[in-house]
């Protein structure tokens, strides 16, 4: 009786082992079903989806103009104090009126958690999420970025 059970157990174990090995053998002979991506080598062909949240960037058009009015809605929406907007007063050359404008749009990538709340909060659509994802640098200070390009100004008609 003991021997019968023993042989049965061994037979069951061999059978379950063969079932598992059959699956391994299947993939061994079907290379096309393996979907491993060779990551650093496929950078050129790697396309990230358009909504991917990589980092915050400011949209500039061909005339080096942006749509940021300096309303600080993004700064208030950010949970981590990632964004700091420094404003200045531009003097209009024709009318002589003072007008509020952004001086520097400071963005701390090292604090950003990519929650997209700033982009949602922006009333003029001045910022968006870019698809960049390899952010490693040797010095932490390089992650503090100024988003408005040098010499850029606000687009006409954006209030």
């Amino acid at each position, binding site marked *: 009786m003991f021997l019968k059970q023993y042989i049965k157990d061994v037979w069951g174990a061999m059978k379950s*082992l063969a*079932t598992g090995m059959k*699956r391994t053998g299947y993939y061994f002979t079907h290379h096309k079903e393996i979907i491993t991506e060779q990551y650093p080598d496929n950078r050129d062909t790697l396309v990230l*989806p358009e*909504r991917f949240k990589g980092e915050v960037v400011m949209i500039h058009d061909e005339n080096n103009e942006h749509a940021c009015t300096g309303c600080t809605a993004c700064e208030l*929406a950010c949970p981590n104090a990632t964004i700091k907007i420094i404003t200045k007063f531009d003097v209009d050359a024709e009318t002589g009126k003072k007008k509020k404008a952004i001086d520097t749009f400071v963005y701390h990538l090292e604090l950003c958690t990519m929650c997209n*709340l700033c982009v949602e909060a922006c009333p003029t659509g001045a910022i968006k999420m870019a698809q960049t994802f390899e952010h490693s640098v040797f010095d932490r200070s390089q992650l503090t970025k100024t988003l408005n390009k040098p010499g850029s100004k606000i687009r006409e008609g954006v209030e």
Partner: protein
Amino acid sequence: MFEEVGTTTEGDLIINVGPQHPATHGVLHLVITLNGETIKNVEPHLGYIHRSIEKMCESLTYRQFIYVTSRMDYLSAHINNHACAMCVEKGLQLEIPPRAQVIRVLMDELTRIASHELWWGAMAMDLGAFTPFFHAFRERESINDIMEETCGARLTMNYMVPGGVMHDIHPNFQRRVKDFLQLYKSKIHEYDEMVTGNVIFQNRMKGVGVISAEDVISYGCTGPVARGSGVSSDTRKHYPYEIYDKLEFDEVLETGCDSFARYMVRLREMQQSIRIIEQLIDNIPEGDFQAKTKAVLKLPKGEFYSKAETARGELGVYIVSEGGTTPYRIKFRSPGFSNLSALNHLVKGGKIGDLIAAMGTLDLVIPDIDR
């Protein structure tokens, strides 16, 4: 002689398992009292990655605090966000558009499958089988790709906002989910072939980590841990939220009370999630994906509670509001914490080799415990 639980007698060995050990699922530190090979007591030490999320939420506005909660249980981030968004909506008495409700449920169920997939791979790896880990990730990757396309991130999506969802679904969403269902159905039998039917796996799981239905209730366990002992605890069935009461799915119950029962619950739960997705994917109603809300949300004075069924069990969100823009107090009832409390009961009297197997079936996520 001292036979009392937890008392160290002469000749006992005290060993530390974890933190920072791959088999302890994050930074969990277990102090184990051993008598020979038999476990006398297990004492989990917590707090290694405690970031005081509950306290942090008190200084964030209602829109902002939701994103923090996806860092708690990063494997079912969507469902955490969902529970918080529901609690805020309860306070504001917001009506959610039908389209948003369906999208939310679809995302929840995809997250549940992704979470159980990872658990299945990690569980097999705990027991020494490495191949299933890669097979689990293969299916999980296709869910992550869907998430990336619609929500913009692979792990911590921040897709649920009070009033609905942040973006509409991507035009490719329905096609890709259908492709995933096709792939999943052609691969699901591999799981049984590789792991479930394996004799080593069965011998290490059956009769290990036994907990009775009464003990499950007294420890406050929820989710697959409770359902493995035959305790009906599915929030989706008992306190249906969104459109769960209109859907056809079964609450998976097993009566084995051991590790194998908990394993089978999760495996069968994935198939129920597939069933829910199949019912919804062709019937997403047209309309808005977000209700109209004010830019700054203010909850009326009072207390609000909502709960959702995450991949690990019931997550409760309790908000005390004083009428301002930030919550006065927030408390999360996380499933991992209650499930971990049953660990000593599960493994006491068993062998040290069974500890990892029993702990693996609890599906612990440590930030969920530490919060």
